[in-house]
């Protein structure tokens, strides 16, 4: 149980890190580095923040992230998004087809791209004091925490799946609210698709924007009807 708690904290901190990392620096102009920046944001949530050093589980995850090849934390000064700073920031990344782009950002393996988000202001870290609210199976935790995240975000609830002591997925059940949200992040399409397809495989219940005539909509229909016996 204790370990579960730690994992929960780690995840929320990870979320925080993501939130904090909003590449708003207008100096970020096109280029390969940017594509990498995008990649990292993509891997953002992995960055299990250092808040929970004490946890045995967390460092393991963090370590796997920062593994080799980590294409530099494009830390082009990832500014903290101040809560007052309402102006949406545009960072347009022309997806410089990255040969440096380590595809398959998805496995915990030495897969690069799981970069640790630079947490430029460690002081702003969360203390969500999470409470494990549900343990449907010993390995699925739901953690809730209200913390002073960078930018003044509020309550966060995530579901964490743990396998052999390591997080295998983080599913948000509620989003943080109340902070600034209109900073833009950019990704090169191929990278994101990896992640999307992965989650598509099992869990996507329905599809937005799939017009009536499209194959995507037909498959939505089919899955809507794919009931026992049909």
């Amino acid at each position, binding site marked *: 149980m204790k370990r579960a708690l730690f994992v929960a904290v780690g995840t929320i901190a990870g979320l925080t890190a993501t939130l904090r990392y909003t590449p708003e620096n207008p100096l970020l102009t096109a280029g390969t580095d940017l594509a990498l920046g995008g990649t990292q944001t993509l891997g953002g949530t992995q960055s299990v923040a250092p808040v929970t050093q004490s946890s045995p589980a967390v460092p393991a995850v963090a370590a796997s992230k920062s593994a080799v090849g980590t294409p530099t934390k494009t830390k082009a000064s990832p500014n903290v998004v101040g809560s007052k700073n309402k102006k949406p920031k*545009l960072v347009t990344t022309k997806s410089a087809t990255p040969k440096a782009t380590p595809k398959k950002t998805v496995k915990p393996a030495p897969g690069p791209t799981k970069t640790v988000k630079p947490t430029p202001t460690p002081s702003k870290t969360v203390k969500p004091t999470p409470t494990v609210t549900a343990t449907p199976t010993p390995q699925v935790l739901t953690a809730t925490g209200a913390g002073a995240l960078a930018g003044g975000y509020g309550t966060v609830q995530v579901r964490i799946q743990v396998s052999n002591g390591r997080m295998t997925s983080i599913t948000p059940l509620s989003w943080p609210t109340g902070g600034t949200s209109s900073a833009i992040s950019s990704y090169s399409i191929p990278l994101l698709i990896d992640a999307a397809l992965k989650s598509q495989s099992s869990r996507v219940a329905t599809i937005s924007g799939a017009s009536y005539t499209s194959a995507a909509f037909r498959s939505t229909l089919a899955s809507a009807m794919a*009931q026992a016996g049909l």
Partner: protein
Amino acid sequence: MSNSSFHTGLTDEGWQRAVHLEDVWGTVVILEVRSKELASDVENALADAAKFLHQVDDWFSTYRIDTPISALRMGFADENQMPEVIQRVLEQCAQIRDLTGGAFDPWAVPGGVDPSGYVKGWAADVVADLIVERGFENVSINAAGDLSCRGLQAPDQAWVVGIRHPFDDQAIIGSTVLLNTSMATSGEYERGKHIINPFTKDRHLNLASATVVGPDGGLADALATALLIVGLDGVQWFQEFPDWSGFLVDSETIHTFGPAFMNLGAEL
């Protein structure tokens, strides 16, 4: 009468599912509820909620001559003679027109005012709430691509939704979780929608697709279309809406903002 069908089954997690498909608006709307145990009146509840979709058609169809909106468009009536619900929708549309600096403008459409860029998402919300009122808390509506979700899709799991890939109608390009919120996507692939750029008066669009997530399906629907027209500059409209999120695709890049897409790639 209308074509509809009803199906039931189980999810992988053992929850009961019930799905109602309704032929309406020249397309199909999917109404789905899930629960550990569904009440026995689920079929009636979904059928009743689906009736609202036809009511919406009776009010807002621009393809029929016998609707109030057609009377308005043809100049046989003016706005203050419309049923109250239409007036309310038009008021919303006017506010969104102002918010978007005219990028969303139902009055700029050739042929007269046409609020259908708002109505589909709005109707999805109403139907979802009607079903919740009948006691089913886990609801997903897919109104031909406009989504409105309530509750969960599985134990401890909010509804996971995909975004159609604008260049490949068999793929999804992103996904997120809808937490009692709605999602609308507009894409240049929607030939049938005849999206007109009110500024250039032509079909010029600045994105390949635009997806908006937020607590109001009608607004999401309208803003998705407006973003498609304007492009990234439209993100400024969301300054005062920190709960809203967007997922924008141009020829080679995805741009996101807002909490719903901050977790991209969270799958470790």
